[in-house]
């Protein structure tokens, strides 16, 4: 049997099995899911080097599945994160009810994500896309809380995106008579599609919803924060990348290498669209960052931060130069890694402490050192500080923007990534630093099966910080699929088109040496007189904080910044959406006035309709 079909089958039947096994015992589905993901992953990694393809037909439509380098790049994300998340969730979900439905949807979404990337025709692409949407939707609302607020928005926005995509798909089909992706790209090359811009923009809208691009992002914070953390890592790490995956195809394969660049109008429109997207990405990054830093809930903060990070990725893709795309794909992978790790870490906190509200937690660093370590590493990567891998992506992005002449966009990006330090610190401080709570004195480190996946991700961040070439290799292959030729990369040296470079090995060596020197100096100097004290032992003007008092600064953390940036906070897109939605609903209410419930009215309708038809139709027919 074809491996691709087998993997899909394994995931989908695994989902069924997971659900059915929950009828026997609530503990089983977790293991079933783990086994399924493991089997699928192993199967994929055993065979992904080989050429894989499959095509079959369903109600007269040809479906094609195949692996290519671009696909493999994203498959790494899906399977890597998927297997870690399923290992993680076994313990995370331990005492929760209804695990069957959770794991069924978990596996469905992973399987369908794989389905999306291997689809080489729009129909199976769309089918898997929708399966992914509703399975993730079911996980978003899995806990039954805030269904209306979280779930409906997600589903509605996803539907808008999906339907935009569907429109584009059927339009493409009506133009070229097939759903094949390759045929579409060929048609683009040959300029055989009349309303290519419309189609592309519709497709982009569809992908932008999943990539949570402003102004289509409003589902994201709510959906991300309402999801069990074991899935949020996949959700934010891998699922949102499906939007990136699609955008890459459209922005690069259609816009950049369309063979129509000589056509002035086409070039103008496609460049305009790219620019608009790039700016939207920038605005997304900036605004989402601003919202992230006022959040009190760690998960919500990370949700907004995800949106911001996806903004960078979109910028990179929209700019579309070699370096920019490379940075975007690199950031996409890194975002999957560090955001996966972060959501897992926050999930560990949630499981051990019972809340993710940063105003209620503090000082967990001693209780959960591994979780802190993972968070710290991920946050450093997220903030883009060298020597971890986040910096590599950021660096490439900036260089790409500057060398490409997007001067003001780079400032916006810089602003948002500087502001990102604020929320980065917020989450580290909010959860792990500050005075220790007596309430959390009993808290222990999360179980090993939860810590191990996180630590693996963290280690990956550290290693790729110095040797990003590990990641560049699949990216370069993927970019060649997208149409770039001669993609160069180096194991440790980053360089831009102007020839400027950063040698990461030197950086990490210098940091390491300097740090070791300082460590030795500080640790051994006056070692006798040096001692650790409790975090309660602080100098508060001689006042003595009592045992139960916690002086950790948690509320209104960035109030001064909020005050300074008040105009930026004044208008919330979410609120606008809600107003629009409410307004529309009120407007739609008029339909209820049509149906008065009065038989006479209905009779009049019939007569009036008859007369109208007689008048109108007489002229028409």
């Amino acid at each position, binding site marked *: 049997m074809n491996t691709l079909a087998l993997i899909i089958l394994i995931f989908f039947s695994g989902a069924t099995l997971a659900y059915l096994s929950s009828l026997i015992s609530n503990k089983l589905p977790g293991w079933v899911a783990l086994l399924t993901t493991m089997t699928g992953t192993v199967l994929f990694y055993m065979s992904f080097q080989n050429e894989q393809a499959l095509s079959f037909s369903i109600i007269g439509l040809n479906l094609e599945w195949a692996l290519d380098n671009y696909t493999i790049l994203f498959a790494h994300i899906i399977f890597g994160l998927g297997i870690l998340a399923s290992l993680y969730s076994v313990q995370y979900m331990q005492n929760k009810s209804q695990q069957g439905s959770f794991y069924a949807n978990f596996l469905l979404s992973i399987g369908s994500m794989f389905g999306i990337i291997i689809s080489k025709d729009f129909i199976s692409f769309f089918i898997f896309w929708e399966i992914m949407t509703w399975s993730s939707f079911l996980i978003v609302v899995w806990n039954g809380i805030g269904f209306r607020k979280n779930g409906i928005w997600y589903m509605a926005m996803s539907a808008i995106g999906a339907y935009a995509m569907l429109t584009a798909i059927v339009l493409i089909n009506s133009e070229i008579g097939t759903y094949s992706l390759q045929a579409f790209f060929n048609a683009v090359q040959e300029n055989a599609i009349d309303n290519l811009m419309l189609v592309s923009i519709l497709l982009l809208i569809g992908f932008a919803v999943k990539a949570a691009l402003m102004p289509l992002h409003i589902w994201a914070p709510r959906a991300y924060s309402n999801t069990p953390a074991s899935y949020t890592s996949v959700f934010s790490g891998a699922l949102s990348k499906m939007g990136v995956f699609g955008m890459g195809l459209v922005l690069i394969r259609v816009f950049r290498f369309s063979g129509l660049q000589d056509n002035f109008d086409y070039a103008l429109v496609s460049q305009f669209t790219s620019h608009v997207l790039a700016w939207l990405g920038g605005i997304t990054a900036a605004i989402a960052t601003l919202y992230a830093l006022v959040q009190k809930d760690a998960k919500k903060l990370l949700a907004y931060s995800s949106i911001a990070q996806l903004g960078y990725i979109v910028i990179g893709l929209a700019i579309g130069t070699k370096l920019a795309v490379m940075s975007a794909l690199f950031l996409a992978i890194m975002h999957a890694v560090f955001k996966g790790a972060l959501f897992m870490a926050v999930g560990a906190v949630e499981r051990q402490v019972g809340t993710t509200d940063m105003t209620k937690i503090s000082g967990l660093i001693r209780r959960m050192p591994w979780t802190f370590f993972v968070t710290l590493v991920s946050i450093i990567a997220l903030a883009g500080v060298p020597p971890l891998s986040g910096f590599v992506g950021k660096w490439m992005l900036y260089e790409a923007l500057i060398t490409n002449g997007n001067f003001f966009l780079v400032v916006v990006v810089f602003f948002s990534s500087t502001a990102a330090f604020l929320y980065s610190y917020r989450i580290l401080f909010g959860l792990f630093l500050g005075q220790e709570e007596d309430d959390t004195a009993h808290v222990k480190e999360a179980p090993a099966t939860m810590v191990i996946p996180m630590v693996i991700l963290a280690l990956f961040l550290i290693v790729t910080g110095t040797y990003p070439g590990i990641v560049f290799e699949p990216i370069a292959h993927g970019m060649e699929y997208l149409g770039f030729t001669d993609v160069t990369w180096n194991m440790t040296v980053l360089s831009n088109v102007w020839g400027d470079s950063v040698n990461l090995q030197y950086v990490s060596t210098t940091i390491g040496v300097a740090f070791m020197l300082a460590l030795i100096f500080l640790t051994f100097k006056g070692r006798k*007189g040096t001692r650790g*004290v*409790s975090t309660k*032992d602080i*100098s508060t*003007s*001689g006042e*003595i*904080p*009592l045992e139960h008092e916690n002086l950790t600064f948690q509320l209104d953390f960035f109030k001064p910044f909020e005050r300074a940036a008040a105009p930026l906070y004044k208008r919330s897109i979410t609120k606008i959406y809600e107003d629009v939605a409410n307004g529309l609903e009120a407007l739609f209410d008029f339909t209820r006035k049509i149906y008065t419930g009065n038989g006479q009215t209905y009779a009049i309708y019939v007569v009036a309709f008859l007369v109208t038809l007689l008048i109108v139709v007489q002229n028409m027919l």
Partner: protein
Amino acid sequence: MENKRNSQTIAEYIKNWSRKHSLFIMAYGTGCGAIEIPATLTSRYDAERLGIRGAATPRQADVLLITGYLATKTLKRVIRVYEQMQDPKYVIAFGSCTINGGMYYDSYNTINVLEKYIPVDVYINGCMPRPEAVIAGFQQLQDKIARGEADNGTRYKENLEWYRANQHRVIKNWRMPDYNW
């Protein structure tokens, strides 16, 4: 001066010299003497030329200034601050009140002899001492430091039980946390 040098190793000498010339003060405004501190530190008397400057927190401070009478309520804070300071640390007490209670000698809530509660390096007499006197006091302390004689914290630690007993006697509701200061 010269005999001081002889009794110390060179490293000790350098350390003490730097301690002498860099005094971060924790001005604890316990009483009326606090008014003299600004005068001492600002332009007219300019204590900074002697390396004396204010420190905001006891962690960074070298010298604790007790500026006047000490109510028992304040004493608790003073002890706390003192214990939070890092060795070597010094205490300068201002005015008569810290020596013998001064005009508050029979007050029900004021301690009379500061020495009983925390070790004091230098008393500056007067009610109140003028900035000149304060600076003189500082210089005396500096001399003491340079001689390597001022090590307040060790004294406190060695006689901790005695100090604690005295402190307990006046501070009835002793709720000092049992931190490992």
